């Protein structure tokens, strides 16, 4: 890391400390930000990855990357938005690796029933597992765009920004998954 990057990281960490004030007085800024925003990051990670077993590693990776890149963020919404952006990148990379491992037979886990909270009914579990089997089969970029739109409730512009693509591309990716799901939902 260069001097400039280290100084930016220090500024970023202090920015997190300013925004995340109110936590454990003895905790360093990274810890404060982690305690406040890790549930948010973990939720996005689980919905994108579809496996609870992947969440911990993704969350760690996101915060390791976030501390290097945040600059002068002061508003909670700005920090949340930045963390969401980093989470999408990490999940994209991890999903692509998973896809590659599956192609060569190194990943046979499949959809994880553990991604559902205990409060889900059996019918809801069946529906969600069905959804994630579909998502496992569509291209990673399309999966991410659709999940951000329909499970995270993001506006289309936000989806495009998080995915690092144009609005038209985001719409196209979302529509592609909608078509696949629609074909597999006989009651629609």
């Amino acid at each position, binding site marked *: *890391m260069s001097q400039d990057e280290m100084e930016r990281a220090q500024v970023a960490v202090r920015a997190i400390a300013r925004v995340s004030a109110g936590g454990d007085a003895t905790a360093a800024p990274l810890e404060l930000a982690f*305690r406040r925003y890790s549930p948010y990051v973990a939720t996005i990670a689980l919905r994108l990855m579809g496996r609870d077993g992947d969440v911990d590693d993704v969350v760690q990776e996101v915060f390791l990357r976030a501390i290097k890149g945040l600059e002068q963020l002061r508003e909670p919404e700005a920090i949340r938005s930045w963390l969401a952006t980093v989470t999408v990148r990490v999940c994209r990379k991890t999903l692509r690796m998973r896809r590659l491992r599956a192609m060569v037979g190194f990943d046979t886990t499949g959809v994880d029933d553990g991604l559902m909270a205990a409060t889900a009914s059996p019918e809801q579990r069946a*529906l969600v597992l069905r959804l994630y089997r579909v998502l496992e089969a569509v291209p990673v970029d399309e999966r991410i765009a659709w999940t951000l739109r329909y499970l995270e409730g993001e506006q289309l512009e936000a989806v495009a920004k998080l995915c690092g693509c144009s609005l038209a591309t985001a719409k196209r990716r979302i529509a592609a998954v909608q078509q696949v799901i629609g074909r597999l939902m006989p009651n629609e």
Partner: protein
Amino acid sequence: MNDMQRMIDAASAHVQPSWDEARLRRVERALLRRRARARLVRTVGGVALAAAVLVVVGLGFRWKAWSEASVQGATVEPPAAAAEPAEVVFPDGSRAQVEDGASLRQREAEQHRVVAEVERGSVRFDVNPGARVFKVIAGQVAVQVLGTAFTVQRSEVGAHVAVDRGRVRVSWPDGSRELGAGEAGDFPPAPRAEVTIVDETATGPEPEIAPVRPRPAPQKPPVEPQWRDHAHRGDYAAAYAALEAQGPGVVRNHPDDLLLAADVARLSGHPAQAVGPLERVLRGHRGDGRASLAAFTLGKLLLDQLGRPAEAAGAFADARALAPGGALAQDALAREVEAWARAGQRDRARLAAEQYVQRYPDGQRAAHVRRLGGLE
């Protein structure tokens, strides 16, 4: 409702990680170990020469800040690393971290009394809980410590003060104010006309609130922006469109505006955009009588519309903490039970349910709470 919509609703509501305290701490420890390893890898190995150059440059840079931070009678810590701010230790054990380019001067330094002055830049103070008197002066602004950690950033017209922990009293020639943990402000505050005037007949732009930059004197009296007109008439869609067109700067950093902006976002079908203003109320205006309502509204948004039950539980708990005997306390606790249950955190749901049943045995939601909290 078709299968696809049921599937989306089920996934939004129930695809939630079980992110309890034990898991959070486990992941946090692993994160810190990884960070420590990453730092070790960067320090040794093939980049040793670059690190040596960096250290030399950093020490020179830090020496300049350190010499500016030197204070008579106080112990000055040598710079620990190239990118760390200079640290000052006072006789009473309190510490100050002096940021790049900042200047700190000591006026008094005794075992039980410290008076320091921020001449320029930003300094973060961590005051020893045993300190008797700890005062920081920045121009015409004085910050009296009541046991806390806080940052003072000198500006052209005064200072920006942000409190991380505890409470401080900020005073200036014409007044004073106490700030609690998580609160911040620019002092001396601008005259009321600059921030609260609503003059429908005047012309000119609404002044922007920029907490970390000195505010310019207003050129003309401000005018009521269009978004408020629409909101007060109940046309939230038009209000939201006007907000988007005019930019976030038209929302003043005042609970009136922040709560109205949150309503505009929420009632125009943009719940995610309501979170920011509500959180700003909770961060910067916790003493306002509506802070508890803001926390409760935030909890409802997070739980009912945004599928973030763990965060919602925190917001409901905050609503109760802000007004323990208020009208919302009972509902807030009930909804906290629901939020923990939907987050898959059974232990927390049960604990909250037990509290509810104990405090409100005849409460309207007692049966619902018992079921969600696993007390049946």
